[in-house]
């Protein structure tokens, strides 16, 4: 079973031209004929961060120079994670015409989602960079850790997307359930509030794996080196999650064309 999915993964990665193209198409379609094109992503994200920042920064009594970069990196990175899982859950369902046409490797449809969301991230990241320039980088030392952090983050999002896509193809209620869960996760994970702000209910942060996931990518950007525990939890999740996702994919790969 594992070999089956590993072969699929290998073939999928090899046909990178296909999934990068498919990923782009979707974005181009969304912003077809608009003047600014995909930069609408940047604009709408910028507006959202500004309004959220002003309101919640005031509510929480935060210093704007600290809070805005924190909020911007949180939201931009959370968007990457949540969209990857949401779109992952419909990845196979939406690609039904392709799957029924050609015997292509199946994981290209997940890779397509990953690629598309990395492109979106690149557009949104302009804001984070802008804010870092305006308000200054907190710590140059922690900044390079963003790269391995992002890698662990995306790898985790990817195995969840693989599972979500597979199971959603069989059980059509799942995309709705996943969307609801992601909404809840947004509120209980320290995204718009700081993790240490929840002093009385700190268990919400301590026992929330997503809090560690967001910490591993956001920390380096806002000058906080992720702790050893953060690395252990996030790398551990990937190490456990990937084999599960691959095993499940291998087991049901052959059923997939029947489900969609």
């Amino acid at each position, binding site marked *: 079973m594992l070999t089956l999915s590993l072969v699929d993964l290998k073939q999928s990665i090899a046909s990178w*031209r296909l999934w990068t193209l498919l990923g782009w198409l979707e974005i181009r379609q969304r912003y077809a004929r608009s003047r600014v094109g995909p930069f609408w992503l940047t604009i709408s994200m910028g507006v959202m961060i500004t309004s959220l920042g002003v309101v919640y920064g005031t509510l929480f009594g935060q210093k704007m120079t600290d809070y805005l970069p924190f909020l911007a990196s949180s939201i931009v990175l959370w968007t990457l994670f949540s969209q990857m899982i949401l779109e992952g859950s419909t990845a196979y369902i939406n690609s039904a015409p*392709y799957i029924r046409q*050609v015997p*292509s490797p199946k994981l290209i449809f997940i890779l397509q989602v990953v690629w598309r969301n990395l492109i979106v991230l690149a557009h949104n990241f302009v804001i984070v960079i802008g804010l870092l320039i305006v308000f200054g980088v907190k710590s140059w030392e922690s900044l390079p850790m963003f790269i391995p952090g992002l890698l662990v983050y995306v790898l985790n999002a990817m195995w969840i997307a693989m599972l979500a896509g597979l199971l959603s193809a069989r059980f059509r209620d799942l995309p709705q359930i996943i969307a609801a869960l992601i909404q809840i996760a947004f509120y209980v994970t320290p995204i718009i509030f700081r993790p240490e702000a929840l002093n009385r209910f700190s268990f919400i942060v301590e026992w929330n794996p997503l809090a560690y996931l967001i910490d591993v990518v956001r920390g380096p950007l806002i000058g906080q080196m992720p702790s050893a525990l953060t690395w252990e939890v996030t790398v551990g999740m990937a190490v456990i999650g990937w084999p599960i996702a691959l095993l499940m994919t291998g087991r049901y790969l052959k059923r997939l*064309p029947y489900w969609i």
Partner: protein
Amino acid sequence: MAYIELKNVTLDLPIYDVQGRSLKKQVLRMGRRNRIAEGNDGVIVVRALDDLTFRFERGDRVGLIGHNGAGKSTLLRAMAGIYPPTAGTLSREGKVVPLLDISHGMDENSTGMQNIRLRGLLLGMTDAEVREKQREIAEFSELGDYLDLPLRTYSSGMRVRLAFAVSTAVDAEILLLDEVMGVGDASFMHKAEARLEQLHGRAEIVVLAMHSNKEIRKVCNKALWMERGRVRAFGDVEEVVSQYAAAVGG
């Protein structure tokens, strides 16, 4: 050396209705173990292929005949590797190119040229191959400057031309065709026929499903008559097609 071999291949197609697929129903089902199982897991199963055993060799030009719903398209999908068989083994060697529904796998908002690339990659061409064949495909489609316009501006005939041109540009060892005739206007039909013949010449095995007995007699040397997912007859094209014609006629 290309071949396709089927040994006792059976293929069940599950038909999920909206409720059958829902998680709610699965969870509810868990509670009542001892009640009589509804059907097979609550999912209706259609046996599309039933115990098929045969072998296609290099040089075979096989025509699939049979009523609508006899399993011709499902058999092509199984041979293409899209539907893995439920039971039995299907082995094959050689690069398979399925041309099942030629208008699928195109993107409305991309230009003709971009669609050539998309479809080419989907059909398993490498990037270099696509670039090499782009011109030839463009010429064959006769779409000229329209290739720089998005696909949504195309008429249905133009779409078919483009799809047909790309699909038939792929080098295949095993070619699986499902009712691809009847494309475009009369002049394009002639071109398409010539192209198919040329394609048949290049491929080592060709399997095509078609309703025209005349066409099948012309291009095939063997015929497989399917009935309700089973093989009714397989052999020389003349023999099988006349049997079929007799059965249908009388």
